[in-house]
């Protein structure tokens, strides 16, 4: 507003051209054409995906009979084998715990180095970013295959695979949290003459810890699901039992294992959601 109160000028200067005209948005017809074009492109992308994956909806109808047969053979679940799946269940949970804990321990220092606002040196920043990108780009299933080859069958290669993949996933998320944190308290404590380590532990850590804990808990949830799949390539746990039961056509055992899997995943999901709320 001008100081003499004669004009209420609400158009910012930056929005005016040199000739004094106000910049105009795309007109109504042009806007509609753009929307139609985007809709056509989206439809084409979806249609080509149906073609490439050879989607045949009729097969779902003809396959219903087979599914019903499978279901009848899977019921009732083999409750008598409950005692035998306790150890593989524990293995599955421990795979996720090991993978998450070591993933967090390795990801934390890498995240500090890979966060542009706190990294101590540029070469370390690029090195940390490279490690994070590599461990994240390779799927955990591939890491499991590599570790099974290296250290043999069993839960250990699975735990290693989850750890390494978690480094990448957590490292990236942790570094983003650090980069997005409120830098005000860091400046305030820097000006007290505090050392870099003091500033880190008193300003950075309290600022980002709740987010890091939340991400870590979410990662545990993810790792639990992944550990089930890793069993398919020989990394132990419920996944390995599931593969064995399928190969031996023991569908009642399969249904018991699926129930155990469902309970485990739901418990982990609810548990980690509860803990995340506590630390928020």
């Amino acid at each position: 507003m001008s100081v003499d109160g004669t004009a209420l000028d609400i158009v910012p200067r930056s929005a005016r051209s040199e000739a004094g005209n106000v910049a105009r948005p795309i007109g109504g017809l042009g806007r509609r054409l753009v929307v139609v074009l985007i809709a056509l492109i989206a439809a084409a992308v979806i249609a080509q995906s149906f073609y490439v994956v050879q989607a045949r909806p009729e097969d779902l109808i003809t396959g219903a009979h087979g599914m019903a047969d499978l279901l009848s053979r899977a019921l009732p679940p083999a409750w008598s084998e409950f005692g035998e799946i306790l150890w593989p269940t524990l293995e599955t949970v421990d795979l996720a715990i090991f993978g998450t804990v070591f993933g967090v321990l390795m990801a934390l220092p890498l995240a500090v180095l890979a966060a542009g606002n706190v990294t101590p040196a540029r070469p370390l920043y690029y090195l940390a970013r490279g490690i994070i990108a590599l461990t994240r780009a390779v799927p955990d299933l591939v890491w499991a295959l590599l570790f099974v080859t290296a250290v043999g069958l069993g839960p250990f290669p699975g735990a290693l695979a989850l750890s390494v993949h978690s480094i990448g996933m957590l490292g990236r998320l942790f570094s983003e949290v650090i980069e997005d944190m409120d830098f005000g308290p860091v400046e305030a404590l820097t000006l007290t003459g505090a050392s870099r380590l003091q500033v880190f532990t008193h300003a950075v850590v309290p600022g980002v810890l709740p987010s890091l804990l939340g991400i870590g808990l979410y990662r545990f949830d993810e790792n639990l699901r992944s550990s089930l799949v890793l069993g398919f390539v020989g990394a132990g746990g419920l996944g390995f039992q599931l593969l064995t039961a399928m190969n031996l056509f023991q569908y009642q055992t399969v249904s018991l294992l699926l129930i155990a899997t469902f309970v485990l995943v739901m418990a982990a999901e609810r548990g980690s959601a509860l803990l995340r709320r506590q630390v928020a």
Partner: protein
Amino acid sequence: MSVALGNTAPGAEIRLAVRGLRMRYPNGKLALDGVDLTVRAGELVTILGSNGSGKTTLLRCVARLLDPTDGEVRVGGQDLAKLNGAALREARLALAMVFQRANLVRRRSVLANVVGGTLGRNRTWWTALGGLPADELPLALELLRKVGVEQLGHQRADTLSGGQAQRAAIARALAQRPKLILADEPVASLDPEAAEEIMRLLRQLAADSGLAVLCVLHQPMLAVRYSHRVVGLRDGVVAFDLPAELCAEHAIALLYRDLAA
């Protein structure tokens, strides 16, 4: 409301001496162009100026949150502009800063935030690992009492109102036992009543504790009412440096001429 300003002794110790300070940002913008400024013990000096005039840049250069391109920033006889590393950390013990948004560690208690102001003189393994120096707690409590929020010591910082947070931030600054306080728009986000209280508190600290206070404000009325001197900054240059009682309305209006045009 009348405020007893009192006069600082002309011969009082110089706590901050800025000489020929220049600051050019990497994009080429010259934010400060040869700024000279002195703040003495017991004096509250306010800097006024429009947005982009260089006020905050000046404060951040003094605190060495920015590296000035040229010039001197003398605090306690040392030129901060020339220091780095451990020497800079040591020299920073003499100055404390109060920020526009208080900049408290939100998830920590008010008391822990105030004790945080003592970290510079408590560089131990315990504090490096995140612990607080227990023997500073009585001082922190006393300072919270001094700024009028002693009952909030055990509350989390993110539960405070704007005025309470700013008082806690001032207590943290005092915990440092500084000789100079820099205040960057400390009342910008406060309601008029809280703004008056904070300015009164800064004024009182200067008068009672002999602190030198350099404050950036956007409220000419508050500047004139509470400061000993008002410095006008325009396009990175000191336009005037006058005792508050001589700071005429037209001189202040000149600082904001572009806004009024």
